[in-house]
């Protein structure tokens, strides 16, 4: 297996974990958001009442982030036998405060260790003992003890270090980080780079650091909204298929699905992708510069009533949308002559 194949495999394992984690974050995060909507920020301290109940349900969800990512990375590597030890040691990681990083490391360790144990050759009569006793018990024991006594400390230190570093980051660097995350979100419109930025931000959100989550959530709808505006402003430059795609991009943008931009990017990646990356970076960077904080896990448009400064949030969104639209049309005007015939559309 070549190095690149190994890297691709590793990426698939991590992304499998993330794909199982996303609904957990969304469900848990939005429950907490709904609780804040009903009961105000005082709900954090509240122990009784409907809003507090909703908050508690949401916190159970957020508390599952680390175990779920550990279990499903292990599942991706070692299949079904990875799940049980992944959850158990993932719970330990969560309670030790190793954060998201700990979840990923536990998942990888459990996965590869179980995969190793699966290779044990034994007489057919003993095989059931290996599959039902040895694998779950040995992997839980070994990885659990290793985490608790050996690698847990360094992981906690690293998590605390990153958290402290981000918390103490100066305004200028915060803006740069936000802009980079915004550009990553746009780069592949829902693909692995987008999910890497998302994962990073969700991990920190779980540690109650809202800056990166604010940056990625504002960026979500900038590509589809910006391209819809671009097609509206310069309809001559766009094929009929793209004009249709612009309508659905508008809807997908409003509900917060970056993928609405994909038809445009496929037809003309060289011009579209830089434009949406810059536009998204503008929105994310500007919202950080203006001190906007988005405590709920909601995308661009729907987040507006929940951010601390709704008006400035809207300013940042519009700036990114307009930047995207203007840039993409300028880029298209540069190479327009040879581009007209080669529009390619994927259903």
């Amino acid at each position, binding site marked *: 297996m070549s190095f690149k194949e190994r890297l691709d495999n590793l990426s698939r394992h991590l992304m499998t974990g993330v*794909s199982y984690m996303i609904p957990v974050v969304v469900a848990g995060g939005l429950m907490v958001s709904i609780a804040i909507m009903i009961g105000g920020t005082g709900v954090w301290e509240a122990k009784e009442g409907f809003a507090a109940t909703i908050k508690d349900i949401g916190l159970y969800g957020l508390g599952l982030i680390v175990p779920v990512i550990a279990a499903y990375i292990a599942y991706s590597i070692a299949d079904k036998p990875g799940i049980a030890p992944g959850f158990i040691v993932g719970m330990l990681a969560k309670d030790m405060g190793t954060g998201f990083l700990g979840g990923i490391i536990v998942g990888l360790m459990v996965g590869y260790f179980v995969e190793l144990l699966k290779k044990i050759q034994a007489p057919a009569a003993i095989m059931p003992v290996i599959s039902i006793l040895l694998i779950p018990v040995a992997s839980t024991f070994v990885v659990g003890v290793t985490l608790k006594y050996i690698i847990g400390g360094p992981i906690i230190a690293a998590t605390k270090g990153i958290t402290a570093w981000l918390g103490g980051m100066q305004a200028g660097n915060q803006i740069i980080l936000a802009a980079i995350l915004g550009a990553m979100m746009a780069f592949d419109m829902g693909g692995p780079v987008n999910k890497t930025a998302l994962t990073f931000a969700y991990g920190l959100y779980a540690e109650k650091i809202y800056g990166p989550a604010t940056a990625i959530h504002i960026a979500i709808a900038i590509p589809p909204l910006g391209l819809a505006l671009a097609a509206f402003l310069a309809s001559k430059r766009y094929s009929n298929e793209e004009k249709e795609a612009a309508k659905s991009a508008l809807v997908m943008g409003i509900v917060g*699905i970056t993928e609405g931009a994909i038809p445009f990017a496929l037809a003309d990646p060289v011009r579209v992708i830089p434009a949406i990356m810059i536009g998204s970076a503008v929105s994310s960077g500007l919202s950080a510069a203006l001190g906007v904080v988005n405590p709920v896990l909601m995308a661009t448009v729907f987040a507006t009533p929940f951010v601390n400064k709704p008006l400035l949030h809207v300013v940042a969104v519009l700036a990114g949308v307009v930047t995207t639209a203007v840039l993409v049309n300028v880029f298209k005007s540069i190479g327009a002559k040879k581009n007209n015939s080669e529009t390619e559309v*994927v*259903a």
Partner: protein
Amino acid sequence: MKIVAVTACVAGLAHTYMAATGLKKAAKARNIEIHVETQGSMGIQNKIKQSDIDTADVVIFAVDTNVAHRDRFEKKPILTVKVAEAVKNADNVINKALELIKK
């Protein structure tokens, strides 16, 4: 010639289904029989029958995550590509799959 394929992306919203559509179109254009299973945010849809897997000549995984229940495809020649490849150029992915079994 018969191909079975699985598509899956991380969020399971768009790429998964676009890749499936692309592969179906590309196969249809060449009169190749294809069955595509999507493993998106709704879980497995259009699940491929085991009998189709058994009689298929080659398997395509167009995935950014791992394929669920991949033991179904054991012993089959499998081409694994990123989901984006099947979205951008499904025809080329089919070419690669055909090359794989030529050898």
